[in-house]
């Protein structure tokens, strides 16, 4: 039987399948099912500091609105002894997940203020997180803000957090850097033990009937694998950080591709949302079969064996790939 184990962020994992941050991870029963299905670790949903702040302000609004204005109704809602505003709910969930699961639990954080990032990171560590995934995404809309300034901001943030916590930290990236390898290198040098490629965002859409801008999230499919696949292949071996592939992992073939390109772990979300947590067990079984059929002894053998530095034709990952696709496109007559 092939050895499926791997190491990610210094954590010993029994296989390379890790459910990534998704609404499924909000439920303890779903987390248990993931573990039962064979997940090697789990990344919890993200704590959004901005949302926590908003909830706090909303709570204040609910409890203050209309109060002390009219003699008969000085307040309108009862005050509870305590509310879980801010990170409490998340930290409690993280704590419970740690209690319930034997596999590593990776907390995910999307900060809003420098103080918030650091404070919440510390609190996640204290709540028992085995590692921390920083869900960074800053959408620069100010034309005066340079790319370098955005990059420096990420580096500073990571540096601050690394100075605060002892658990390993990974950074989940967007693909939108002029030089992704350089950014990846800087992050690795600043202490990122892993890079997660790539973040998947809500993208706005326009409702042409209602003339509204509406948020839109499309679940991934296997075609979406290509973008992270390429960049993992490019980055593999060039920096001191593990690479995790997320976006587009749906099948055993996708997992194998990710490993071949250089990923240490492959992460699943859309597949589990669409077809259930049981898919982990199916993919693992198929992975096992594939390794046997293809006479691999371990996933370690696969890892990076088709990265940019390991393939005969590295240009396939570079510009030529683009050229070939373009030249192979023939419009219908």
């Amino acid at each position, binding site marked *: 039987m092939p050895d499926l184990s791997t190491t990610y962020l210094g954590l010993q994992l029994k296989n390379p399948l890790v459910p990534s941050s998704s609404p499924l991870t909000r439920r303890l029963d779903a987390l248990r099912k993931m573990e039962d299905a064979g997940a090697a670790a789990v990344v919890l949903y993200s704590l959004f500091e901005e949302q*926590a*702040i908003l*909830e*706090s*302000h*909303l*709570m*204040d*609004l*609910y*409890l*203050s*609105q*209309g*109060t*002390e*204005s*009219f*003699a*008969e*109704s*000085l*307040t*309108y*809602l*009862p*005050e*509870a*002894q*305590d*509310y*879980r*505003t*801010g990170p409490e*709910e998340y930290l409690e969930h993280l704590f419970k997940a740690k209690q319930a699961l034997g596999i590593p639990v990776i907390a995910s954080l999307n900060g809003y203020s420098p103080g918030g990032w650091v404070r919440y990171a510390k609190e996640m560590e204290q709540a028992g997180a085995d590692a921390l995934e920083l869900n960074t995404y800053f959408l620069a809309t100010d034309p005066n803000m340079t790319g370098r300034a955005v990059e420096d901001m990420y580096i500073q943030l990571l540096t601050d957090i690394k100075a605060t916590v002892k658990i390993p930290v990974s950074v989940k990236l967007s693909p939108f850097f002029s030089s992704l390898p350089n950014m990846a290198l800087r992050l690795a040098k600043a202490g990122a033990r892993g890079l997660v490629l790539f973040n998947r965002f809500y993208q706005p859409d326009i409702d042409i009937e209602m*003339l509204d801008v509406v948020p839109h999230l499309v679940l991934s499919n296997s075609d979406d694998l290509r973008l992270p696949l390429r960049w993992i292949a490019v980055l593999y071996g060039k920096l001191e950080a593990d690479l995790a592939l997320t976006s587009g992992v749906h099948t055993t073939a996708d997992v194998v591709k990710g490993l071949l390109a250089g990923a240490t772990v492959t992460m699943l979300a859309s597949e589990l949302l669409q077809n259930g947590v049981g898919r982990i067990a199916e993919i693992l079984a198929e992975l096992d079969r594939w390794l046997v059929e293809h006479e691999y002894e371990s996933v370690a053998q696969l890892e990076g064996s088709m990265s940019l530095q390991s393939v005969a034709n590295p240009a396939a990952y570079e510009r030529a790939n683009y050229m070939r696709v373009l030249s192979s496109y023939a419009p219908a007559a």
Partner: protein
Amino acid sequence: MSETAREMLTLDGNEAVARVAYKLSEVIAIYPITPSTPMGEWADQWMAEQQPNLWGVVPSVVEMQSEGGAAGAVHGALQTGSLCTTFTASQGLMLMLPNMHKIAGELTATVFHIAARSLAAQGLSIFGDHSDVMAARNTGWAMLASNSVQEAQDFALIAHAATLKARVPCLHFFEGYRVSHEINKIETLTDDDLRAMIDPEAVSAHRARGLNPEHPVMRGTAQNPDVYFQARETVNPYYAAMPGIVQATMDKFAALTGRRYQLYEYVGAPDAERVIVVMGSGAETVAETAQFLRQQGEKVGVLKVRLFRPFAAAQFARALPATVKTIAVLDRCKEPGSAGEPLYLDVVAALHEAWEGPMPTVIGGRYGLSSKEFTPAMAKAVFDELEKAWLDGQPARRHFTVGIKDDVSGLSLDYDPAFSIESPDTIRAMFYGLGADGTVGANKNSIKIIGEDTPNYAQGYFVYDSKKSGSMTVSHLRFGPRPIHAPYLVEAANFVACHQFSFLERFDVLKYAVPGAVFLLNSPFGPDEVWNHLPRSVQQQIIDKRLRFYVIDALKVAREAGMGGRINTTMQVCFFAISGVLPKDEAIAAIKNSIRKTYGKRGEAVVQKNFAAVDAALEHLHAVKVPAEVTSLIERRAVVAENAPEFVKKVTAPMMAGLGDELPVSALPADGTYPTGTTQWEKRNIASEIPVWDPAICIQCGKCAYVCPHGVIREKVYEPVLLDRAPESFKRAAARFKEFKDLAYTLQVAPEDCTGCGLCVEACPVKNKTQIKLKAINMAPQLPLREQERANWEFFQTLPEVDRTVIPLNSVKYSQLLQPLFEFSGACAGCGETPYLKLLSQLFGDRALVANATGCSSIYGGNLPTTPWAKNRDGRGPAWSNSLFEDNAEFGYGMRLAVDHQRATATQLLNELRDTVGAELADALLTAEQKDEAGLRAQRERVAQLKRRLAALNGKGSAAAQRLLDLADVFVRRSVWIVGGDGWAYDIGYGGLDHVLAAGRKVNVLVLDTEVYSNTGGQMSKATPRAAVAKFAAAGKPMPKKDLALLAVSYGHIYVARVAMGADDEQAVKALAEAEAYDGPSLIVAYAHCIAHGYDLKYGLSQQKLAVQSGYWPLFRYNPALKAEGKNPFQLDSKAPSVSVDKYMYNEGRFSMLVQSHPDEAQRLLEQAQADVNTRWATYERLARGE
């Protein structure tokens, strides 16, 4: 409550009492009623927090459907051997009376705590006096009066301890608002104190008397003439013992705490010749005044009555100084037609029986009804009256009033308002704030800081106006080194803060500033420019009184700190900085500590924004160099326009200006009858932004006007020629109505009446094609538009109203051409109830009788000074009345019975006078269908003709002719509407509503369903949905909402509709029209978003949509008339649920708060709520299929 250590805390009377009552009870049955509601809320909250009582068990706190229900539950629990209490006031106490007789008759130990309040008579009042408790004086209960917050706490314990010993139940009362809501620094009691006072053997005996099938007895027998009388006399020894037991309990309490009380406590000169006997907080005023007068050498004193029942004549007489010659007994109630008010009569009787020596002259006076101020000046006037009585040898008058000017009966005493006994070492401060700006909350925190962080004593009392939105609050604070016994408002302030610049134009905020006082103004103008923006009278007072004048742009500070319009924190810092009550750094540290305590659990972000406001405050605070001369040309605005009716000018306007106390008795109607349509004269200008119409893109759908809660958006179609006289800025467009193709159309906003809620913009379906963020109606700052739009509004009003006979009324678009006869109410900005009432008034207002249950709709609908129900140009409009809370269906039913009977009588008379008035006219009058506006107009013309013919008889006709003339109006079809909230319809009034609907008469019931008791601050009703947080359901309501509509459907003969105008506006207007047209009873249950739901009401309409889309609020109409056509009467008007119920629920604080406070319970209840929705939808679908 601490186990062992007494603390000095600043809290209000309700909390002080509830702390004790909760600790000493096992079963607490409650029902909300102002001003006692907070006691129940505290009890419920402590139960939710699992706080134990004195015996280590969490009491059962249950909300009942009425005060009658609460009393019944308490009675049952008492009979089963539990320790019980309840809290109530006013009409609530009236509903408890039957049970109270029983409880006393069965010699059952319990205490009811009463925040004593006026009873509704010529008008309802929520404020304090003794009317309610005096109506309970024959129930056989002991009655114990406490005069202050400290006493309210202490007497709560004394009452519980004494009743257990004596077996006589005890009514412990204290004045609503003056004591229930006053915040004062008191020494609290500990668990050990309570334990020391409560006799465990008495508790065991109480328990042993409980019903128990192990040793059964029976109570509640029916007794007959042979024994009832004797049995009634058996209790005499218990009543005879009660005063002694209460005094012994007071003595034990004194030994424990050092606070000594007497049943009848005399304070004053030992050789006093003039004594005032008084009960309640007024006794403190009299005592302080007597103390002051004694220092001037006057022989005066006060006898405080603590125990009113049983009235212990001998002890009372002994408490008076033997030297007394004249006595004034003050009653805080009125008993019309009696020989005297209750305390007066008891005093006279007691003296007659127990006084030894020359009988003093006794006179009786009324004071302080409905929290009318009772000041030292008034107390002095009473002492002066006694002087006159004594000097003359007999009383000038046996009965008097004080505190008002009675120019009808001549009973009132004159007093010198300038007389003041304020202690020089007490600092007195007044703060004028806007309801929404947080002023009161900040002042409550300030009192706590002063009371608990300094050795000072502190007192706070808060006055609110009659409006729910844009209201003014006035905070009265006192603090100083000695305990503060001043149960009256500040009238000589060392510190005056005006938190809203616009108040300077409307109110005399410096009236009570003493010379040399500080004046702090929140001003958009800086220290160098503010002077020229002040009204002339303000400048004059600043100069004349040599005020120290400071300004701060608190709104700017607050906004920059992320606080929006809440300037509370900023102004609080300024108060501490200027007043110097604490060193600056200590004050700021204390404020921050208080902020963390108050807001900490709402999240760090909230704490930090408050801190930011604190930190920024002082650098924006500036002293103003006051010029020597008055320079302003700005005069205070006239309260009402010149063309206002005489009554409005003479009576309403002073009330609006805050001068209602100065109105004499003769100014007021004797029977509570007031003119309608008075809100139009009160230009409140409370909106910072108002809607602005864009005629270029408007499709004239009427939706903005339809949803406007305040009736400020109006539409008219008119002949274009009328525009010749229009102001230049008056907007118009070509009418887009097929009936009015050649007419012009205008949508006009009443700029000074708008509250700025923004619902209109949300409702507008049109988007500007070049700038999507703009609609056909958009919000813009009010101030730059005010003058222009005021002129436009005035012109708009001169345009003719639409001819009601030429348009269909049952559509949104057309209905909004009709004049609303409900306008400019003081409801919350964005209220979800008022649009339905406005629509009702548009469709049927000119022939409507409205019975309005007590609640929000009766308050914004009928609270003086101005009321929104209005008249049209013909002088017709809704005739409105409020009876009570519980009886509204019956009240409206009575209106229907009267109308029907009058119609029958008029019909009979018309038949008799057929020849006199003309057969053709008589037949037409009797057979007119009046199914539409044309028919109604024709009938009105016939009635006018009938009246002319009858009047032409000129008194020479028969008596029948005169009687017919009296009743002729009834030939025009009346529309009887029974209106109220869910607290009435689902709970307290449900029995009556059910009966009236079942009875089959033609009444229309409109239930404005906010799913909580909105008016009293959001308590759970049976309309509250599962999983919602509400008061009395702090941990989420575990049970589902009652389906009132479906219950009514089950009868089969009632027209029933569930509507939500934000979800389907056309369905709502159709339902109202069909209900009114249906020849039988109708019930419309209308979804009304509410401030108690915990979100910005601007989004009320979209929440209504989600409520329907999720299946939470399915829309339907059940029209029994369809049966005759062979159709299914049940029409489901909404589609199958398309979103899960959480998508609706979690946009609202009432649901989402539970996720944050009780996450596991929230999840459990959410799942059940979804199941509720699914089940209800399945039921409705079956009905819609005719199954």
